[in-house]
């Protein structure tokens, strides 16, 4: 349910910017419904974990102070992502960091497709199954990278191979995983 919708007349309309139409409980429900996907979206964009919560919170506050015509959950989610994206870029600029090398509009489309398919659960399940098929050094490299958060140099030391070797292993493993996931999702 979108807490900002007024369906009494069978239609939805804007209530943002009209605080009288909202109460505290409605705000909490809005946050509960969208905070998880927003966090995930920011991590997907590459937001450092230490600032994700701050940006999520600022996203909601900006949303609540903006004029926004609520139509449905999907458009609300998309609007929240738009705010989060801009706040993320703003925070990068403030920190003098380069923006992510992503076409953000295309990235949002990919994310929307992922999220709108049962919150991404099928994709993550497919990935888990595909990971069973990755064995040996590639699996070790994936675990070191994504579970232990090690950089390429540290992985290279552990596997006793060069950094470019690690790079090749990870690139190949990810390519195979992506193909496997997409195949499973199509099926």
């Amino acid at each position, binding site marked *: 349910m979108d807490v900002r919708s007024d369906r009494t007349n069978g239609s939805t309309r804007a209530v943002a910017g009209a*605080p009288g139409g909202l109460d*505290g409980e409605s*705000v*909490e*429900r809005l*946050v*509960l419904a969208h*905070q*998880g996907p927003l*966090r*995930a979206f920011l*991590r*997907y*964009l*590459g937001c*450092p*974990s*230490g600032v994700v*919560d*701050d940006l999520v*919170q600022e996203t*909601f*506050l*900006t949303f*609540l*102070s*903006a004029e926004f015509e609520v139509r449905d959950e999907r458009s609300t989610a998309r609007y929240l992502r*738009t705010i989060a994206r*801009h*706040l993320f*870029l*703003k*925070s990068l*600029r*403030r*920190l*003098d*960091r380069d923006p*992510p*090398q*992503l*076409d953000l509009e295309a*990235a949002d489309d*990919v*994310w929307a497709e992922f999220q709108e398919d049962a919150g*991404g659960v099928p*994709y*993550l399940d497919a*990935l888990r199954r595909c*990971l069973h098929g990755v064995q040996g050094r590639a699996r070790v490299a*994936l*675990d070191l990278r*994504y*579970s232990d*958060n090690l950089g390429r*140099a540290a992985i290279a030391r552990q596997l006793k191979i060069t950094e470019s070797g690690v790079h090749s292993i990870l690139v190949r493993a*990810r390519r195979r*995983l*992506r193909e496997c*996931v997409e195949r499973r999702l199509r099926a």
Partner: protein
Amino acid sequence: MIDPGDRLLEYALHEVLGGDGADARDLSGAVRREWERGERRELSPLERRRIEAEAAAALYVESESRPRASTRSPSLGPRTAAAAAALLAAAGVLAYLARSRPEAPDPLSNSEFIARADTALWVDGVPGASIELDRGDLARTPRGQGALVALANGGRLRADPGTAFRVDGPSSFALLEGTLGVEAGPAALTITLPGDVELAVDADGEARVDVVTERGIGVIDVAAKPGDARLAGPSGTALPLDAEADRATLLLGVAGVRLASPTERVVPEELRALADEGLPPGIHLEMLNVAYLEGVLATLREQPELWPLAREAARDVLDSAATPKYVRSDLIGSFSIDPSPFAAEVLRTAWLDDPAAFPVDAIVALAERGIPEFEREVDAWLEAWDPSSEDDPFSVALVLALAGDQAAAPFLRTAIADAPKDEFTFVPLLAAAGLSRLGVSRAWDEISGPFVEETRALLDADELELAAQRVNVLAYALALRDQRPLAGIGFSTEANRRPPVAYPWHWIRLYGESRADEARARDDLVRELETLATR
């Protein structure tokens, strides 16, 4: 650009293997409290306008390329000295509102630690993700990255790149170098500054604090609390901030210490120890000065993981208005003959900022390496070249020679003849390489022989740095001489094909490593020179 599908997989791998989302906090209560504070309380029309303006900027401005200044608080414009005090108060309110939001949430209020920073921070020499800061921690941001520091009392600090500070308490920090911005937080923060502090207020209500440190002079910008009596002085008045004259209470805004000269960094001992501790092995603060950059380049070939630090140091120097033109050109020249992609990256950024700082031969060298911006520049020269009006016909002639244009030959011969005899220059060697490309090999034979001999003499005299520089240029000139078509060739291709040779000269000089290291380094260099000399 990254394929969003790849990024999605990357995210999903973090989720599945790393469990990234497992410890998520519920923000609903905090957002509700925040919203009620901001929306339900009585706001002045000015506060309301400010909040609306911020929301609009966040939503619609960020993707545009308009200057950052356009999203700042409104300028107050010129004003008379007589109205300075009144306007100062107004400016203070605007500055406060521009930098404040409704009171920040209290994300860490139940925490035992004092603050938490994201990954771009070294604490007591250790980098890490979501570092928790405790009393007494010495922290610094790398030169290329800033950090957001969430405070346990609800505030948030921004540490700009290259900032070093010490955590003295929940609301107390000692700023050692760089800039700390206070982005949110109801509580006053005390930022202790090194040395004596005096406060000066300008006509726009911005306060500037001159800091006299033991070793130099810096500048601190302070946005003051509205209505603070200590700031209500006439424009230009210098006032001691408080009796101790070494503390500034910063409510919201920015405080920073900037060193007086980027070419002669004055580094307090405390900071030096801190920085050296925080930097990875192999690179020390003093090595980041211009004078050491050439030597650092050699180390970086051996330890490329240190490049981000050197890159930021170079950018600092190139970006600074205080850097003399000749230093800027020297640095660009040094980087332009380094084959690493990192050096190219520094120069690409610098090119966007200040193309006029690039010596022509550096542009040519970079074009030769196949870097598109510089190739375009050189192409433009070739199209528009008028030898009679060209200030530096040599470089253009060299490019023409590489493209096989015989019209370049007279200019290259002139360049060789006009090269100063009593001053070292690479021009004759490069011109000879160009002439070789035009089928005239005599000049190369005449010039490269003495060049190699002089380099051997430098090696015999233990002038290893100079010798290393000449060996690099010899390699580059040979690459120019031997390659055929202009498109697709590049020094980087040639250099990367050969195993890198490490010249740890600065290690030897700075740290007095063993003579055996020096001998080994010289042997490597001799071997490299003799290999090149036979080509």
